[in-house]
């Protein structure tokens, strides 16, 4: 299942729903991405981020996320898969994205979960603009994200 929404989600409730009543699931892997309060790799050297706004392309976003989920289900024997992505203004500490996959075995759950976030990062039409004291700046795509997605091609 995929969901694109402005409002926050309850990761715990999503996780609980994932395993409820299932006795063929051996493992659930879940990843939650959060807004950090600095730009770059070094918290001390990074510019403080006051907030960010996530813009998206309604319609195409759902279409791409559905394709990503379908691809994951094709590649691994999953019991379930879930992608939730927010848009709009978010503050440091806020949840941005949740991806999760469950399977009889942990390998499939881990790999599918990683695949979901890696592909989403390069294929789902979202754009972040960071609000700092020095003004607003569109986040540039990271080469590391491209590399991470290429592993799955």
């Amino acid at each position: 299942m995929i969901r694109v929404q402005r409002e926050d989600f309850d990761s715990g409730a999503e996780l609980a729903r994932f395993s409820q009543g299932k006795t063929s699931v051996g493992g659930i892997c879940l990843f939650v991405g959060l807004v950090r309060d600095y730009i770059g790799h070094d918290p001390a050297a990074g510019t403080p981020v006051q907030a960010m706004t996530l813009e998206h392309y309604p319609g195409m976003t759902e279409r791409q996320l559905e394709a990503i989920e379908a691809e994951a289900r094709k590649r691994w024997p999953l019991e379930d898969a879930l992608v939730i992505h927010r848009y709009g203004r978010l503050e440091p500490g806020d949840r941005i994205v949740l991806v999760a996959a469950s399977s009889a075995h942990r390998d499939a759950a881990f790999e599918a979960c990683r695949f979901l976030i890696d592909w989403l990062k390069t294929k789902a039409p979202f754009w972040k603009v960071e609000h700092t004291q020095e003004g607003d700046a569109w986040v540039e795509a990271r080469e590391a994200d491209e590399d991470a997605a290429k592993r799955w091609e």
Partner: protein
Amino acid sequence: MKVLYFAWLKAKTGMAEEDIAPPAGTTTVGQLIEHLKTLSPGHAAAFETLSVVRVAVNQDYGGLDTPVKAGDEVAFFPPVTGG
């Protein structure tokens, strides 16, 4: 056809969406871009560096050679940064 702009392409063109009737003979994304660049200095600026512009035709990723026709939804945006 409907043309959409996102992120800084929206800022540069000054619009989120416009209806475009491109000149006859416009059959690809590349040709559409050539036409869009003539519309305003903002449009020209938005398409100045095509290596940082991505395109989707009817909500699927495409390239400069992807066919476009009347009635299509063509979107231009920078490389995505979600997740």
